[in-house]
């Protein structure tokens, strides 16, 4: 019992010391960014929880979800990376039209599923640095189901803190959409305008 006490106390002292150190040194932006990443997801989750409990119609929820997606998510990089290297060859007006269509498609596809989350809860657990970005872990509890892990990847490389991926039990939204957008592009024989038209109808 004593030993156990000592270990936990030591662990506590060590982590408390590290946190204090991180805040004391302005050069170690690690803890600060870490906290910022977590704060971003905290705010996004609060907004999402608000929509879930609002009891609005599906169409209203889709609009709310699109707003949250555009506010907290880096739609540009998610859209571009879903398209892959093909995105580089586009004119800026094509890229804008594609990104806009992609945003609407994502909002419809995932926003209409929001009613499944009614009565559910998302809790932010913590975050860690991975390469140049941060991974924020959350636990999602839906009615009648055991909690599952949803991780947000957050970066500030767009100039603002935004998430660029959401990983649900190992399934990356960005990579899954990359497969889907790739399939739509193939269906259109590689034609970007065809893809944009498809996106406007899909979801």
């Amino acid at each position, binding site marked *: 019992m004593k030993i156990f006490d000592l270990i936990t106390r030591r662990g506590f002292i060590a982590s408390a010391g590290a946190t204090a150190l991180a805040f004391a040194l302005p050069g170690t932006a690690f803890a600060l960014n870490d906290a910022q990443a977590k704060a971003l997801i905290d705010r996004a989750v609060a907004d999402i929880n608000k929509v879930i409990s609002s009891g609005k119609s599906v169409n209203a929820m889709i609009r709310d979800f699109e707003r949250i997606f555009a506010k907290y998510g880096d739609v540009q*990089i*998610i859209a*571009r*990376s879903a398209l892959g*290297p093909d*995105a*580089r060859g586009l004119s800026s007006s094509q890229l804008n039209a594609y990104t806009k269509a992609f945003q609407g498609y994502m909002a419809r*596809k995932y926003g209409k*599923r929001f009613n*499944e989350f009614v009565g559910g809860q998302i809790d932010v657990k913590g975050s860690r640095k*991975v*390469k*140049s*970005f941060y*991974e924020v872990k959350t636990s999602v509890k839906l009615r*009648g189901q*055991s909690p599952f892990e949803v991780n947000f*990847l957050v*970066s500030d*490389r*767009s100039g603002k803190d935004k998430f*660029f*991926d959401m*990983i649900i*039990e*190992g*399934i*990356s939204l*960005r*990579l*899954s959409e990359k*497969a*889907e957008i*790739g*399939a*739509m592009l*193939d*269906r259109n024989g590689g034609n970007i305008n065809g893809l944009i038209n*498809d996106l406007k109808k*899909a979801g």
Partner: protein
Amino acid sequence: MSSRKTKAPAKLGRSLLLCAVLALSACASNDQVSRTGIYDPKEDANRKMHEFNKDVDRYLFSPASNGYGFLFPQPVRNSFSRFADHLSLPNDVINHTLQGDLEEAVGTTWRFLINSTVGIAGFFDPASAIDIPRDDTDFGETLHVWGVQEGAYVELPFFGPSTSRDTVGLMADIALNPFVVIFRDPTQYIGVAAYVVDAMGNRYDFDDTIDSILYESADSYAQARILYLQNRRFDLGISGEDIYTDPEFNPYEDPYEDF
């Protein structure tokens, strides 16, 4: 038919299956990884099987599941689902043991004993209430722990997405399942029936998700494949950044580097 007579071929069948399992695990261990992180050399055949599975779902499984969900309210479906989970516990114990995870093997044994008795044959789950949760495993995971590679992506008839390693695992799980080994018909079919009923319950509960993947995506085969592989790797504890150096398939690869 005497039990002696049925026993011999059953035994032979099982040992043949086990031999096949071992032989196939050898095949499954290749080092092939494609640029996309997906190794799918039998894509054409898999796609045909996918269409077959979609037909099975559209005309048989989905309507049957809707009927099942319509007839039985959620609490009843949940207790059937708990029963199905319960029946797979002995198999979990075997696999935890084979993986060298004795702690989980013992925990799962406790879970089985408590839920068999207090939980009335597993229709209820008092074990979770006293913090002995289910730690689902299978022979595919055992092979993974033993170092067998994932192998090729496979779409199996009825079962759907799998890999060559997990296909071998599935066959081994069927061959090793104590309910199949120990009990004779009709008892041994209880496990199969519970499995199908549980699958129908899941099909009903996740109707919107499954429909959106199978019937609303541009390429349902590719969607099912990428969803399965990512989730399976996550279940096996393979985290993206540790294993995949592949930018096409690693969610932790920085997309900002591409542009």
